[in-house]
């Protein structure tokens, strides 16, 4: 099963390497990883999506917790949560395709953020499955390039991950 692990981490050099190294060293899987400082510049917030049997996920969270620089962590998939990913996608858009692609982008609430005579660059935000649905709708022949940020997640309601 897919899990979203959200980590509050000391914003120090080497901290990211420790997290990534742990996954490599113990042969855990990282599907996506995002990281950036929080409103408190001494802390970073990292979101990792991973998947595996419950036993492995339990080990992942325990091993992460053992890293000295990990302040707190939560498996967001254990409760109600929001997840978002941002994608920039460059697609061929010429002739009759242009209108069709524009319509599809509108349906997915995407925004065209850059245009040339033959190319649209579309920005799209949403959960991972929405981005994948869009990629499928556009079709592989039109896609020139995709860039995705990976998932960021946060718990719903009043729960927070903070010091």
């Amino acid at each position, binding site marked *: 099963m897919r899990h979203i692990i959200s980590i509050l981490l*000391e914003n120090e*050099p*080497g901290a990211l*390497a*420790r997290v990534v*190294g742990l996954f490599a*060293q113990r042969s855990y899987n990282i599907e996506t990883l995002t990281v950036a400082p929080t409103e408190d510049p001494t802390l970073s917030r990292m979101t990792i999506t991973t998947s595996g049997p419950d*036993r492995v996920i*339990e*080990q992942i969270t*325990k*091993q992460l*917790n*053992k890293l*000295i*620089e*990990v*302040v707190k962590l939560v498996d967001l998939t254990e409760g109600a949560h929001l997840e978002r990913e941002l994608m920039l996608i460059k697609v061929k858009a010429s002739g009759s395709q242009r209108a069709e692609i524009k319509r599809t982008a509108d349906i997915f609430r995407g925004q065209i953020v850059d245009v040339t005579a033959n190319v649209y660059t579309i920005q799209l935000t949403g959960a991972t499955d929405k981005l994948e649905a869009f990629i499928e709708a556009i079709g592989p022949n039109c896609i020139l390039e995709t860039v995705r940020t990976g998932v960021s997640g946060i718990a719903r309601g009043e729960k927070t991950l903070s*010091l």
Partner: protein
Amino acid sequence: MEMLSGGEMLVRSLHEEGVEYVYGYPGGSLLHVYDAFYKQTAVKHVLVRHEQAAAHMADGYARATGKPGVVMVTSGPGATNTITGIATAFTDSIPMIVITGQVMSHLIGDDAFQETDMMGISRPIVKHSFSIKHPTEIAETVKKAFYIATSGRPGPVVIDIPKDMTIPNDRHEFSYPKKVKIRSYAPPAKGHSGQIRKAVELLLSAKRPMIYSGGGVILGKASDQLRKLVRELNYPITQTLMGLGAYPATDRQSLGMLGMHGSYEANMAMHNSDVILAIGARFDDRVTNAVNKFCPDAKIVHIDIDPSSISKTVTVDIPIVGPVDSVLDEFLEIIAEIDQKPDAKAIDSWWKQIEEWRKRHGGEYEKNDNGLLKPQEAIEGLWKATDGKAYICSDVGQHQMFAAQYYKFDEPNKWINSGGLGTMGFGFPAAMGIKLNFPDDMVVCVTGEGSIQMNIQELSTCLQYGIPVKIFCLNNGYLGMVRQWQDMNYEGRHSSSYMESLPDWTKLAESYGHVGINVETKDQLQGALDDCFGKYKDRLVFVNVAVDPEEHVYPMQVPMGAMRDMWLSKTERT
């Protein structure tokens, strides 16, 4: 306030931590620090002959005392040479501080002379690591490193110091912090009382209980509590390779070691038990054999300070995360106040069953009639000669297993071996680290002619500092454990397990200014041991003991089997 250079601050910080010896090797990036060493006498430096040995010396000291050993090496090859030593300590959760020099800050990343990314190379094998960015960070970093290394589940901590952090005329205010707080690090201080009560109730309801204790009891200094608990309950106890000595091996309730080369009775009792209390042990693959066949009827209570050790390989029923000493204290309190008592009748018949197992195979082995010593006999001789009181520092292989089986450890911190990583070359420097700090105690390195050659150069260090350890080398001319596996699993094809061109060991010892004794036959053993601990008490003695090359370590669990599936000799299987 005092103004000190970074190098002076480092040495002073070590002194503030009560460090007496630092084991190391100088080099370019650490010369400022070594100069600071030279100008004081409180902290002494021991110059090894290879940096790996420095790490093992520090490690041996830590295993004997529970205090972290300190290693200091230069950048590049100095640092990388400690890697095996750091990994050895990490795998067995041994506290250690490793200070590595680094090239000047502005050169980092330029592939400078003797530059290596020590932070990166050591990352998977340290509990934590620090890189110093400014000389004023040194004192606090050392304080944090000692705190992290020794608290919770202990482990090695690396401090990487670029040369420009230690420049003599770059002086800063120095004061050593009394306390340090790390907001993201809080090792558990106490077990969960509700869980402990549940565990006690389960334990008291057991018909066929087993107590399975590990190295965590020694690291957590809970040997007294363990002894009280085991005696109070009259339950049988088995100990892991790392846990030997926490409970006295010569006691009736001790079933010896369990696992791959565990005793027949310990492995049988584990397999047939209905409740297992695991204390500071981690269900290592060398203990459990095939996990899916592990102790099928047992409910398991597991006490460990590290939550990630719990249900990692074997799923447990009642986990308790906390320091073993305080958790066991609570066990004892609850047992004293609770109405429930152990089921005396069931425990009685359980003991009867165990005694039957003991009778079937109580560690006996066949002796030779041609005068050639069996390795087991040699270890038994050593045990008697030292009255069971020596520090036994083992290398890795058959001799290690024979020592674990036949040297009966009655006290904790006396059995020093690389159980987790299995590092050949560990025993001799570990023994040196202990002998240096306990000059009046008997310290013996039990080794083989394979292992000893992995750090033989330290004979020179022993001469320089007067470290009279005893080297007890079970010489069978083979890499014995490799040969045993080749005999058992590869139809006796001894691929690269025979060592030709061995040195003349007595001459080798003598050339370093030590004493060498050859034991070629059984009847020479006693005399050699007498000389070793008598006439040559204050000398390093290399006892080269010829032992039967054909001998195997038994019992040996059958691969992929259950705990009870064992070879008991070359011809007998359970």
